């Protein structure tokens, strides 16, 4: 069965067919959004004044 012409493959299908790109995105996005952002917030917790 003939494949479609390369130019006809939708960019989203190219993404889905590329497990390495998905792996990279799947690692980077949660690490930045959940982990690094939280670490940043915790790091910036100010000292208590205990008024």
């Amino acid at each position, binding site marked *: *069965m003939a494949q479609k012409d390369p130019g006809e493959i939708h960019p989203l*299908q190219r993404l889905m067919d590329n497990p390495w790109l998905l792996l990279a995105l799947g690692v980077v996005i949660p690490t930045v959004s959940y982990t690094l952002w939280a670490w940043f917030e915790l790091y910036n917790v100010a000292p208590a004044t205990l008024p």
Partner: protein
Amino acid sequence: MSIYPPPPGWFKAPHGAERLWVGLAMSWCLMMFVAMPYWHFYGKQNSTGEAYRVEPAAFAQRVQRFVSTNQVGELNGIPIVQPAPGGDAYLQAQMWSWYPILKLKKGQTYRLHISSIDLQHGFSLQPVNMNFQILPGYDHVLTLTPTSSGEFTIICNEFCGIGHHLMAGRILVEE
């Protein structure tokens, strides 16, 4: 079938019932997402995580000073302490008690500072059913307004050793 490679040209937009459902689900998801920032600005119950770094020993000292300056009574050997309305109140979590007993006034707002001097604990106020995480080294500040009066029990709902299920305290709220 899902166990075979799909026929080429499988990347197609949904149609029919599927498309309707994706649209409905997406709308519902957006609605749920908007609800949280909405409640953050207009709702009265929020968890903003306001906190400051503190040494457990320094926090314990501040609690002692709070107790000595504001004590109004005692229950089961634990001081009952009444903070000024609109002011700061302090609560210490430790294995295995909550110290002191706070006496608050309904409708008044307090800045409640809670920390632990040893392990992690779970501040769980019953029967209001309000729950916050308490960490050693962090002064967790809750800007709190009791909206009901009576006697309330603080239990611990974060495992803190063999006495965990004995850890209970009190908050009293007068009209």
